[in-house]
């Protein structure tokens, strides 16, 4: 259905602008996907969505489930708002966006409870808090309200991946150094541990929220060192 509407949308654009049809993955569209991964990352550059990045990155699996949930909410939210963008009364547009996001999140919450119950318990309140994730509202208001469905979809996916990779990177280090595991599998050999006569001990500090902040900080540092565009005067 989205495709059909999309084509109508583009047909309308053609009539108005008399411009040739833009390819699906034109340079501009690819930029929508790539930009949030690095130059305009929602977490490390725009510093949005930090709260959940601190809270659920102790282990990789919950971080992955959270990322997928945000990906779904973001892509679907952007598409729905973009579909309705010419019909939304201007005065209640924020409320409409909020309702769209809130119902998608409620849906995700129900699905998680039904199919990945244990993770949903672990994520607890943070699934509900996706509603207040500034990245999502920000993209709806700043992008989906003024752009075509396909572009909004790409923008949603791009930003969700930008959020996801930071989340997974932070969770990778926190789980590896804090618990010695990845996705629950033991990575650090048992023999290394002090208890077994070795020399190694898990860093309990990695499990606490401050270490997530420090890890995000280190990622920002590395990113800025490599990407000179981001360095302010």
């Amino acid at each position, binding site marked *: 259905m989205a495709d059909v509407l999309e084509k109508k949308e583009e047909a309308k654009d053609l009539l108005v602008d008399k411009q040739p049809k833009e390819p699906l993955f034109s340079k501009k569209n690819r930029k929508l996907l790539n930009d949030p991964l690095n130059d305009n990352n929602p977490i490390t550059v725009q510093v949005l969505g930090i709260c959940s990045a601190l809270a659920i990155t102790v282990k990789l699996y919950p971080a992955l489930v959270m990322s997928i949930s945000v990906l779904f909410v973001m892509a679907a939210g952007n598409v729905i708002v973009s579909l309705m963008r010419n019909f939304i*009364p201007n005065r209640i547009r924020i409320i409409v966006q909020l309702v769209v996001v809130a119902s998608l999140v409620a849906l995700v919450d129900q699905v998680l409870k*039904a199919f990945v119950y244990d993770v949903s318990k672990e994520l607890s309140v943070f699934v509900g808090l996706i509603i207040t994730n500034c990245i999502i509202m920000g993209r709806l208001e700043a992008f989906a309200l003024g752009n075509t469905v396909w572009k909004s979809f790409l923008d949603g996916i791009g930003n969700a991946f930008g959020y996801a990779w930071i989340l997974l990177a932070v969770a990778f280090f926190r789980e590896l150094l804090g618990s010695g595991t990845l996705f629950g599998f033991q990575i650090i050999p048992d023999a290394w541990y002090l208890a077994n006569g070795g020399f190694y001990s898990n860093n309990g500090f990695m499990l606490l929220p401050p270490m997530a902040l420090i890890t995000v900080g280190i990622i920002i540092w590395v990113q800025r060192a490599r990407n000179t565009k981001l360095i302010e005067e």
Partner: protein
Amino acid sequence: MDVNKNSYTFLFATAMVVVVAASLSFAATNLKPFQDTNVEQEKMQSILSSIQIQVERSQAPEAYGTYITEAIVLQKGEAIDGQDAFAIDLAKEIRKSDEERVSPLYIADKEGKTYYIIPLQGNGLWGPIWGYVSLKQDINTVYGATFDHKAETPGLGAEINTPVFEEQFKGKRMLDSNLTFVGIDVRKGDASTEYEVDGISGGTITSDGVEAMILDCLKEYVPFLKVHSGKTAKATLISE
């Protein structure tokens, strides 16, 4: 079409609410059976965990069938028929008067020994707390306990569901030397006797909730258990 007219705004808002409500309730209704299964399995898992049997949630129904030999419903200290113990909603029962209140009791058989598993339900700081405590055949010594909560503060009250807190209950006693029911005191510091455990620092209200919950829920069972566990138990009690 003028999308900024008042009438249009009202119409749009109404239509939006109807569509959202319909789709969400459709999804909720269809997912309910799956969610209920999960909750049921988790309940079995908790019940088993109180007699120190740890199983994966998916394996819980099978293990539950193996270990739990009997589930009975008590009212005013006596067993009654016609109610499914597992289906009782304890949160509703604790609000009823003592006359109307029904209490489920699970009897487990593990390695030839009988354990009585008593479900608990009470209030923490932010919301309900619940758990299961299992008693040895002498109906006095705690064999194991497990707690959980809905919304206690992470790091403080929420610690009641950690092994560190739960392990303390093992071997504690419920009856004093005169065999009257005294419960377990969740103390602020220096728990030393066999009727006391350490509370959680910064989680005093939740800790008090656990103490009150044990007092409130267990008193229903004491008369029944005294009879049920019979002479063997009495003998153990006296010898201990």
